[in-house]
């Protein structure tokens, strides 16, 4: 009987311990469990993440600041920082970033450095591997080395880091952001290295893709003539960012192609990803000669991944004689886009290819040495260890060559590729100061000075000053290259094939106060082929033409019109192509459904509005035309990475070469022309649209091309699905998939500059705050917040909160 009691107790206590471990989310054998007890207990779990509607003022002390700081949070929770020095202002900015967005900062830094599996589990290991293989950790370490060469500036960034960690130190487990409770991990302290990770994540997103491998494959299978006829680098009707008359008159002219450097071959499939359609941005500046008030107007809308929390965070900083407002990415000090009492500034991505691939010639299978300039050269071997939640660590051996890390290894080791990326280079200038110094720039010249230290990802840095200047510089480091250099995989055994010299910043494409009265960029080609240095990339072809056309024709421009222009949903691709394909000679008008579709498309004004069906018909039709036209190229996609021809080239072929051999479908005996492709694609589109109706789906543009704003963890309960949107990837209002105008900003540069801005999210990263997604509705409706940086502290404080940070000796 007594032993029964012991047995019962043993059984009970074992079950209790197992249950407690289960509710605590302890994991074993690759199974990750939600920590139900830890997460849902009302004392420290998600219940404690609720945000009180009325918030009490906060007082705290810090030894890291020189003088007292006051932060006023307005009713949208935008911090207005009042500090006496830049050091203290950056401390306060770091403090607020952590308070509102720490999980986001942490995840972005983990994404950059390949440490996601550590908190998510084995499903993210392949992502982490690819991040470190492409040299992200190497780039981060190189940057840290470079940043340390500027100790004064490095210390300034440390102040920002101190601010972040001050906010973290206030937290008990009950205060941890909700996502940490879901993932069952604690937050880690912030470091300068993590700020570098955010910078490199942006470099990776905006300048981390090259088409070298698919371009090399296509060159090999198509031959030179066909390749260069399909993949033109300049189009006849292009509208480059910089006008020809402003191009550098550098003595060095374009050097001829070094064909011997190109490694013509066919490469195995890699994880190469095409540039994502939708990532891109617009900015433009109008000089006073074209505005109603006579003052310049500035506009900027970066199209990045729309996420919750939003990628952007608004801040207003006042220190010394600076009064600046704008947005930055949490984790990065300063303001990436914004305005002060003198100038407004912002960027778009340059899209030039700064990533080159080199085939490595190993001396033997051990890969311990490779041939370079005729000599065996030692490989640097680094073993990376990956922590993986719920299972054992994983190790991967990375090999570094003079070119950079070996990113792809072939089964036989005979086609291993090393990648050379400008973002790998140790910075020779204090690049971290760009967005800090921009805040205090009082003129376009001072803005140029602030931005000249910037290295990568190269941006079209545009600014306008209230004194009348407008100017743009294609800003970043670029190598001087011979023609076609960097477009294809190169041989990695010869130093002559390595570009080493940078283009001097003065010779970067730039333009100031053009006679036409405006400057605009939207990821199109930087210059015509008259620019003395060769560059290549994947550029935008339609948005920029719409912007150019509108700005050329507008006069007496107002800020309201610029906001309206940012919502412009007109697609020039549809305008160029639709009349031709609607007039196709073999359209079958006996089919009633086809007649309706045809009529819808004929009456469409090429604006992508959510309630219309015509944009859906057109895009589906065009997608089929594209696939049917390039069936010869798609045929290679099973065995290699292919380079997709551009839309403008496809349309040029349809309009000007309708009998081109690419219109012949390989699988049929008949010799098709563009008209056959158009007809066949129409029928396919019609079928798809009918199937959608049969499946209970609508063919309205908003449903055909839905937009979701996902939470960083893609948890549906924390995301907003089916967001109302106009536009398309080719429209100024570039909305596609989950990419779109992640921040819309217009600044009227009158005597006291007045700004307007909105982003589809909210200041708080807490899903239980009203300010988590409060601006989405405004963004959907195309409305903006009016932002007057001259309001007083008391005016900002209405319905807000004050955080007083006192200096402690």
């Amino acid at each position, binding site marked *: 009987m007594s032993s029964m009691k012991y047995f019962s107790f043993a059984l009970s206590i074992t*079950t209790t311990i197992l249950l407690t471990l289960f*509710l605590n989310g302890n994991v074993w054998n690759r199974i990750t469990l939600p920590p139900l*007890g830890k997460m849902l207990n009302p004392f420290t779990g998600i*219940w404690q993440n609720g945000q*009180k509607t009325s918030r009490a003022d906060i007082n705290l002390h810090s030894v890291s600041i020189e003088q007292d700081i006051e932060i006023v949070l307005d009713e949208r929770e935008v911090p207005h920082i009042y500090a006496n020095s830049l050091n203290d202002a950056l401390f306060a900015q770091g403090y607020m970033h952590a308070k509102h967005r720490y999980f986001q900062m942490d995840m972005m830094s983990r994404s950059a450095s390949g440490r996601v599996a550590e908190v998510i589990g084995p499903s993210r290991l392949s992502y982490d591997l690819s991040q470190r293989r492409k040299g992200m950790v190497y780039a981060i370490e190189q940057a840290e080395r470079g940043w340390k060469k500027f100790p004064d500036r490095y210390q300034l960034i440390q102040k920002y880091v101190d601010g972040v960690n001050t906010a973290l130190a206030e937290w008990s487990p009950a205060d941890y952001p909700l996502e940490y409770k879901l993932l069952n991990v604690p937050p880690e302290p912030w470091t300068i290295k993590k700020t570098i990770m955010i910078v490199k994540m942006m470099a990776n997103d905006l300048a981390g893709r090259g088409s070298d491998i698919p371009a090399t494959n296509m060159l090999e299978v198509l031959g030179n003539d066909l390749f260069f006829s399909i993949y033109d680098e300049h189009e006849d009707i292009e509208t480059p960012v910089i006008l020809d008359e402003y191009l550098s008159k550098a003595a060095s002219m374009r050097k001829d192609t070094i064909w011997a450097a190109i490694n013509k071959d066919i490469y195995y499939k890699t994880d190469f990803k095409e540039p994502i359609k939708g990532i891109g941005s617009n900015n433009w500046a109008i000089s006073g000669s074209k505005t109603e008030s006579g003052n310049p107007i500035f506009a900027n809308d970066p199209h990045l991944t729309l996420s919750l929390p939003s990628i952007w965070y608004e801040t207003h900083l006042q220190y010394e004689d600076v009064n600046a407002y704008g947005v930055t990415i949490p984790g990065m000090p300063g303001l990436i886009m914004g305005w002060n009492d003198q100038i407004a500034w912002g960027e778009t991505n340059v899209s030039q290819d700064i990533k080159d691939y080199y085939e490595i010639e190993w001396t033997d299978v051990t890969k311990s040495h490779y041939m370079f300039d005729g000599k065996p050269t030692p490989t640097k071997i680094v073993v990376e260890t990956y922590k993986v939640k719920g299972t054992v660590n994983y190790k991967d051996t990375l090999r570094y060559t003079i070119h950079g890390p070996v990113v792809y290894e072939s089964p036989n080791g005979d086609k291993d590729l090393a990648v050379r990326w400008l973002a790998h280079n140790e910075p020779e200038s204090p690049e971290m100061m760009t967005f800090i110094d921009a805040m205090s720039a009082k003129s376009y010249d001072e803005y140029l000075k602030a931005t000249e230290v910037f290295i990568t990802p190269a941006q079209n840095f545009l600014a306008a000053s209230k004194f009348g200047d407008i100017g743009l510089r294609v800003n970043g480091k670029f190598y001087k290259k011979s023609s076609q250099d960097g477009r294809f995989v190169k041989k990695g055994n010869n130093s002559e094939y390595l570009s080493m010299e940078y283009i001097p910043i003065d010779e970067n494409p730039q333009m100031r106060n053009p006679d036409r009265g405006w400057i605009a960029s939207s990821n199109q080609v930087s210059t015509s082929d008259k620019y003395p240095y060769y560059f290549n990339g994947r550029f935008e072809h339609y948005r920029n033409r719409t912007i150019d056309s509108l700005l050329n024709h507008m006069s007496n421009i107002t800020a309201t019109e610029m906001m309206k222009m940012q919502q412009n949903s007109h697609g020039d691709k549809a305008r160029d192509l639709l009349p031709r394909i609607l007039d196709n000679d073999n359209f079958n008008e006996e089919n009633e459904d086809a007649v309706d579709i045809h009529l819808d498309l004929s009456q469409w004004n090429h604006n992508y509005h959510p309630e219309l069906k015509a944009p859906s018909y057109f895009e589906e039709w065009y997608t089929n035309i594209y696939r049917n036209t390039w069936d010869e190229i798609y045929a290679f996609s099973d065995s290699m990475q292919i380079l997709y021809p551009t839309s403008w080239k496809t349309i040029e072929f349809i309009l000007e070469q309708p009998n081109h051999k690419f219109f012949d479908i390989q699988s049929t005996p008949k010799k098709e022309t563009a008209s056959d492709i158009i007809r066949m694609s129409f029928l396919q589109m019609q079928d798809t649209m009918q199937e959608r109706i049969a499946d209970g789906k609508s063919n309205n543009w908003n449903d055909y091309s839905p937009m979701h704003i996902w939470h960083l963890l893609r948890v549906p309960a924390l995301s907003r699905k089916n967001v109302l949107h106009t536009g398309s990837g080719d429209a100024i209002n570039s909305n596609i998939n989950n990419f779109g105008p992640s921040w819309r900003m217009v600044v009227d540069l009158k005597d006291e500059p007045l700004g307007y801005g909105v982003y589809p999210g909210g200041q708080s990263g807490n899903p239980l705050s009203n300010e988590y997604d409060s601006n989405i509705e405004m963004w959907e409706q195309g409305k903006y917040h009016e932002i007057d940086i001259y309001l007083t502290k008391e005016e900002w404080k209405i319905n807000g909160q004050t955080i007083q940070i006192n200096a402690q000796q």
Partner: protein
Amino acid sequence: MRSFVILTTIIIICSLLLPWWIIVIVSLLYMSFNAPNSLWKSIAISFLSGFISYLLFSIYSSLGLDRSPAELIANLFGKLPSWSAYLITALIGGIAAAFGGLSGYLARNIWKNSLT
């Protein structure tokens, strides 16, 4: 009733200061020294104490907020009604405390046995 009130109070106080699993320890220790004579009564008191303390504190934690945590928690489990979040939370508290209480009762049985 007295045991229920005392245990509920101790669970709330300890949970405010210590990690969530203290509810299991508190129930175990309480029933080790103060368990009623009936197994089922010990389990019921522990369960109810855990259930009510979690329920009350989750309701208290939802007062005066921008947004209801209950709605978000219910959505995390699918599209459940908000009240289900309170129920799930209270059940977790109840079950954790009940297992603690059960082990405490059985420990007390051994303890009592060795004394007699």
